[in-house]
């Protein structure tokens, strides 16, 4: 099984040189994305087959990499599940790009890196030793960096790429240290050897923190998220979808692999850290998202929110696992994994929608959009499905995973530790707050972009996007619905993964009546997506029938009430910023030091009144700006060394040599 997967990865890598060779040809886009689509679909089916048949983990060792180590690869239920996620996202992105790729300014700068990026993400999931893992991880970072700066003439993209590269190197450094601690002094870097060795409590805690920083910086945990809202929107939209929908999940995989698999049995207080970071990330992510007016940046910040939710569930799973409550741990971990899968689906869908809007109108600024539901009805429909799913509304898939998370949170009173008893409900409150704010955020994103009247001529003349892009979006929307209506099937498929990591599993769901899911016991709670969907569908049909048949089936259009103004320009509509104003006033004044400065002209003056909004990013100001200033200051000081005389250089070398010799002489 593993060797087939590796052949698939090899095929993806082999597409890259073909892309370079074909770069001048007009067919390059179809050939490259078509090939990527086929290979990722094959890999997807392969992984799905592994997940369903759950055979024993299959491994292979190739004579690559470190000479005494070789390159170990392994496929077990956990990696099979993440392979499914990665390749489903990859296949959808390839299909979307078959159409969207034609709108690219410089496709030859995207085509060679796209298959390599897919291959790298597959390799991270397949790697079975620290060296291969880190090399693949870095490979993934570098290829995505190349894709971020594909449109390099925009200054903003270059800055995004720079910040991304710095943060990616920092993250890999911490992972390197984590694996160094795990591998110990003997260099036992194969995951089998790490699993067999049980690190001491102090070392394990340090590894956990390092892994949280390393994987968290890739996934976008606050306060390491700074690069994410810059880099994800800067890339072409199908790559943004991969970065947000899939690569953050690969980071989650890294964290799960280290903490649940390699690190042995957890301590209860580890979960405090993970829970706290997850809860804060969820709320901060969605608050940031509400302050943005760039559609893709809204989506990127919403990714941060969802990562926060996933990490909070993972923290909960750690807590339950530490106390040996296997069933509860299985529930929390199932919730996290299901949300990983669901988020990959709807975030890819939403980024595709944003990409279609960008291709049709040439802008991502919501203040320039509006009324697109008339020009792009199909895109608007699938985007609405994505918004509903990500806002966790039944009967779609987002609801299922968030509901499971909250079911796990409701089990927290059974935890023996008081710290966790107090912490988990607090995190639950944060998650509930973020879920509500996410709803507001996506009402805003959909409403301002697709409803109302066009705010610019570009939005007025937009055209519906092409068939391939629509096919990709419809496929993902359908997957969102299926995962929402038949969650039991997905939970049962995840059972071997959860069993591998926590030792427990959820009750078998597929036999339940009405396809409902019962996470703990029938008496406690259950959810039937099928019934909810059937009820909504039937009542919706009856209502539509009643209105159109029993009343009148004419569409009537009347003038909108313009608040008493004689000529209501589209600019008098709610804007993205005015929609967010109540939330900005409630939360923003504290979190972002948001201030509104109203400027009224004196009576008699014909100057317009102005309302200026100032929003500050306190995390950037407090954490990143001082580091940047310090580095800049030191660099300016060291610059002096560039202009010394020859003798000064000789003296420096001489002094360095003498000092080193003195250290050697006095070394104990």
């Amino acid at each position, binding site marked *: 099984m593993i060797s087939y997967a590796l052949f698939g990865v090899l095929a993806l890598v082999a597409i890259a040189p073909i892309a370079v060779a074909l770069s001048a040809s007009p067919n390059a886009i179809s050939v490259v994305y078509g090939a990527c689509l086929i290979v990722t679909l094959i890999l997807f089916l392969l992984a799905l087959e592994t997940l369903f048949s759950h055979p024993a983990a299959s491994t292979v060792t190739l004579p690559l990499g470190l000479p005494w180590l070789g390159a170990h690869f392994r496929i077990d239920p956990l990696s099979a599940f993440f392979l499914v996620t990665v390749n489903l996202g990859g296949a959808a992105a390839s299909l979307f790009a078959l159409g969207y790729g034609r709108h690219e300014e410089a496709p030859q700068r995207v085509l060679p890196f796209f298959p390599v990026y897919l291959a790298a993400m597959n390799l991270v999931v397949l790697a079975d030793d620290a060296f291969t893992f880190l090399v693949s991880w870095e490979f993934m970072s570098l290829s995505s960096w190349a894709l971020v700066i594909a449109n390099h003439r925009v200054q903003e993209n270059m800055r995004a790429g720079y910040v991304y590269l710095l943060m990616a190197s920092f993250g890999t450094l911490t992972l390197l240290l984590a694996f160094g601690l795990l591998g110990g002094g003997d260099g036992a870097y194969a995951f089998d050897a790490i699993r067999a060795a049980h690190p001491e409590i102090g070392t394990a805690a340090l590894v956990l923190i390092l892994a949280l920083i390393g994987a968290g910086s890739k996934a976008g945990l606050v306060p390491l998220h700074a690069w994410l809202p810059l880099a994800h929107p800067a890339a072409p939209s199908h790559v943004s979808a991969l970065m947000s929908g899939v690569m953050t999940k690969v980071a989650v995989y890294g964290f799960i692999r280290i903490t649940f698999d390699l690190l042995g049995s957890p301590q209860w207080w580890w979960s405090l850290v993970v829970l706290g970071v997850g809860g804060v990330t969820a709320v901060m992510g969605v608050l940031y998202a509400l302050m943005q007016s760039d559609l893709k940046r809204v989506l990127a910040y919403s990714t941060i929110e969802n990562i926060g939710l996933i990490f909070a569930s993972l923290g909960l799973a750690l807590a339950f696992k530490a106390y040996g409550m296997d069933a509860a741990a299985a529930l929390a971990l199932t919730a996290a994994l299901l949300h990983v899968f669901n988020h990959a689906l709807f975030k890819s869908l939403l980024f595709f929608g944003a990409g279609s809007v960008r291709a049709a109108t040439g802008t991502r600024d919501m203040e320039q959009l509006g009324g697109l539901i008339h020009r792009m009805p199909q895109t608007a429909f699938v985007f609405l499905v994505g918004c509903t799913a990500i806002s966790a509304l039944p009967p779609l898939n987002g609801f299922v995973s968030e509901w499971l998370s909250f079911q796990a949170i409701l089990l927290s009173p059974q935890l023996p530790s008081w710290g966790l008893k107090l912490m988990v409900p607090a995190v639950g409150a944060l998650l509930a707050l973020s879920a509500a704010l996410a709803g507001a955020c996506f009402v805003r994103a959909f409403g301002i972009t697709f409803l109302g009247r066009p705010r610019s001529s570009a939005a007025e003349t937009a055209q519906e996007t092409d068939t391939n892009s629509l096919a990709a979006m419809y496929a993902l929307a359908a997957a969102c619905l299926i995962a929402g209506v038949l969650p039991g099937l997905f939970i049962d498929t995840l059972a071997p993964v959860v069993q591998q990591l926590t030792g427990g599993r959820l009750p078998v769901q597929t036999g339940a009546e009405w396809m409902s899911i019962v996470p703990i016991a029938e008496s406690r709670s259950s959810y039937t997506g099928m019934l909810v969907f059937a009820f909504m569908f039937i009542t919706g049909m009856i209502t539509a029938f009643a209105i159109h048949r029993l009343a009148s089936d004419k569409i009537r259009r009347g003038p909108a009430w313009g608040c008493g103004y004689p000529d209501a320009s589209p600019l008098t509509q709610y804007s993205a910023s005015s929609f967010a104003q109540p939330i900005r006033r409630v939360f923003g004044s504290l979190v972002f030091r948001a201030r509104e400065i109203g400027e009224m002209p004196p009576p008699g003056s014909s100057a317009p009144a102005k309302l200026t909004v100032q929003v500050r990013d306190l995390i950037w100001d407090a954490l990143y700006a001082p580091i940047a200033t310090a580095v800049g200051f030191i660099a300016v000081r060291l610059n002096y060394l560039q*202009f010394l*005389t*020859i*003798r000064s250089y*000789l*003296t420096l*070398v*001489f002094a360095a*040599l*003498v000092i080193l*010799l*003195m250290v*050697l*002489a006095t070394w104990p």
Partner: protein
Amino acid sequence: MQGLTFDIAHMLAGSLVLVSFMQLYQDRLSALLNMFALHAFVLAASVAWQAYAQDAPHLYITALIALVFKAIIIPLALRRIVIRLGIHREIENVFGVGLAMLLGIGLVALSMVVMLRVTSGADPLAREDLAFALSVVLLGLLMMVTRRNAVSQVVGFMSLENGLVLAATGAKGMPLVVEISIAFSVLIAFIVIGIFLFRIRERFDTVDVQAMDRFRGEKR
């Protein structure tokens, strides 16, 4: 006999360090060049004694190279350069003699401490040789740092290289080809530096490196 062999090797290597010290306080260029010739001559003698002591005939070739190139050709050529540049009577001194000597003594002590600690367990002859060689290298560097005349810096560089050769011959079994290539690379370095000296002289009317610093618009 073992004792005497060791003593003579020790004495020759020690003399090399002593000559390095003598180079440090020469403030006239022609005297410095004489000292350099002596330095190379002592090196040749030391290498020859090593050849005898280790019963390694190829080291005689090394000694011959040192004698011919370093003790005769390079000093003569440098002397010609100095005379053609008209700076053979120039006096230069950056540090006081006392301070330079004190620094040199400190360096020799340092290299003794380091080498005797690091090479414990090695052949005593090689240990002493390495300690002295490191002293010679450090003294050569000290000379390059303290002098401001380009010719004296060249001499410092060459005596530093002598220290390397001493270290190399002390370690048994160094292939001849390495030794010859070092000798030739030093010769080429010497040629290049010689050409540069004239170019510098043409442009600045002096080989005082301070003039170049002034030309770059910097104050020291």
